[in-house]
């Protein structure tokens, strides 16, 4: 959240520093700038350069022009990976935002006035806990539950289901299973931000509406949601970007499989880099992903600033 609001640097009162005085501060930027150049700038440019070559990572890369990008356009694996990203956006951004709003309003506007802050905070912590797990740990917890002979199927068999599905290994079930895990992980993020945002809404809005006999649902629709626009925006933006970049859960749960069922661009580029050693092609995928992420961020911010201006 801070990320997008902090940019509007406030004007500081007091005498402005002279040009010479400002210059003296430049040296404090040196370590950071050096690190940035080595760790971000140079690799970023190198990656783009590599994407125009044919290279296995060993020996000299040979220039290949736009070959990798031509291949990208016709590569079904690449497009299906991007199509899968849409499912990841649903599971990481859309469902958690919608569900998080309802839950946050339920906790903050309904339960808290009736049962106290302790109850709502405890429940919030419960929903939030999956967020603090390292993704690898979330992966093995769920992997253990979802494997063919894992906890879920053992229970299903006891209940009389003779042939329960291989949740992560079946083409039809892998994506829904991974999506479920991601919703579980992401729910707490939106919830916590929304609950904090709801504390910002002037309670008089709700009081006045209640006196007019507005139901909880009406207040949710006409007060909470409009008032929560900035939070909804931030949550949708950050989670959509996170969904486009998602790697850890895919690696740990399915490695993109079965077949190509849960493959995503980031995992696809990783497997080109370190699996099939098609480094040039992997770099092209990563570059394409970067363009999509940056374009989307720019679009989001533009839409938001237009909405604010209106």
């Amino acid at each position, binding site marked *: *959240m*801070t*990320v997008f609001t*902090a*940019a509007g*640097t*406030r004007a*500081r009162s007091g005498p402005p*520093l002279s040009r010479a005085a*400002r210059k003296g*501060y*430049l040296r404090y930027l040196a370590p*950071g700038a050096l*690190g940035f150049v080595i*760790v971000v700038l*140079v*690799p970023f440019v*190198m*990656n783009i350069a590599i994407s125009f070559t044919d290279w296995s*990572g060993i020996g000299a890369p040979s220039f290949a022009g736009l070959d990798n990008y031509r291949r990208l356009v016709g590569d079904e694996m690449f497009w299906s990976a991007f199509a899968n990203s849409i499912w990841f956006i649903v599971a990481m951004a859309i469902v958690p935002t919608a569900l998080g709003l309802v839950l946050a309003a*339920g*906790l903050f506007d309904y*339960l808290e006035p009736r*049962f106290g802050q302790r109850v709502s905070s405890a429940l919030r912590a*419960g929903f939030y*806990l999956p*967020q*603090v*797990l*390292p993704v*690898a740990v979330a992966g*093995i*917890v769920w992997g*253990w*539950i979802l494997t063919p002979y894992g*906890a879920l199927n*053992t*229970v299903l068999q*006891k209940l009389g289901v003779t042939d329960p599905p291989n949740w992560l290994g079946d083409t039809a079930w892998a994506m829904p299973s991974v999506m479920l895990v991601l919703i579980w992980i992401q*729910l*707490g*993020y939106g919830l*916590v931000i929304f609950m904090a945002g709801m*504390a910002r809404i002037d*309670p008089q809005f709700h*009081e006045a509406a*209640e006196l007019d006999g507005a139901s909880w649902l009406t207040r949710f629709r006409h007060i909470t949601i409009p008032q929560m626009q900035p939070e909804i925006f931030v949550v949708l933006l950050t989670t959509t970007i996170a969904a*486009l970049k998602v*790697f*850890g859960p895919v690696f740990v749960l399915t490695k993109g499989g079965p077949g190509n069922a849960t493959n995503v661009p*980031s995992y696809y580029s990783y497997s080109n880099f*370190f699996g099939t050693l098609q*480094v040039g092609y*992997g*770099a092209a995928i*990563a570059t394409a*992903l*970067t363009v999509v*992420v*940056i374009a989307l961020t720019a679009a989001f911010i533009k839409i938001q600033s237009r909405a604010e201006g209106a």
Partner: protein
Amino acid sequence: MTITTEADVTATVTRPRPAAGGAAAASRHRRGPARWIVLALLTLAALATLFPFAMAAINAIKTVDDYTAHGPLALPHSFDLSAITTFWQEVDYTNKLLNSILISGSVAVLGTAISVLNAYAIGIGRIRARRSVLLLLLLATTIPQEALIYPLYYMAKAVDLYDTRLVVIIISAVMSSAFGTYLLASVLTAFPPEILEAARIDGAGRWQVLRHVVIPVIRPTLAVLMTFFFIWTWNDFFLPLVMLVANDNQTASVALGSLQGQYTSSPTSLAAASLMGILPAVAFFLIFQRTLTRGAVAGAVK
């Protein structure tokens, strides 16, 4: 990753809504049965969220026989730590935890140090082009790691830093400092100019002002930032996965992430591994919340 922690700051920093009108507010909310139904539903939903944690915990301490006889849902009829000890020894978990602590701790310190220096130049030094610098950092945080990883991997190999904890520390510290600079720059831009002015009149140089005036005042924020960096690095998966191949260098996160698919023979050992991954995270969660609250309170007192 960024996600988690920003959420918490917001949550902790924002003051809770004051209990509106006390008794009047209480009477306004009808005391019908509906509220109990809502409470029950939301509690049930929260318990469902916690269910996987409970599953890992109850099955990690069962014997395999107990698991087979009573199934994963039953509370343990036996108490057996052998799944946990086996996991611990096979993975050499002590070593993995120490690596994670070393790497995350170093990133917390180094990343915060870089952030402070950057933010000092931007927020207080008001250097020219500070807006462009901030925009560049913002862009850097949106770049997918995949777009940097191969050159980083190649460069690390070229300078003989591949498969060292140092390279992970350096890369993570610089990447975290993009966010840290952003956060601290906005804090320092709002730093009271009178204090700086007074220090300058007393003859303090730039370094002394930073060391003896600025840092003491923003210490609570720095503690929060360090906590963020520590936990992000602890949870990070991609970079250590690529950079650390030797068993001795791996972090807990990567070691656990590579377990999936192995170990399928014994149903309780994966539960044990899960539990061992969950415990530090939950511990951080508890400590973390307190640090943030303290940070917020300290900031309010100032």
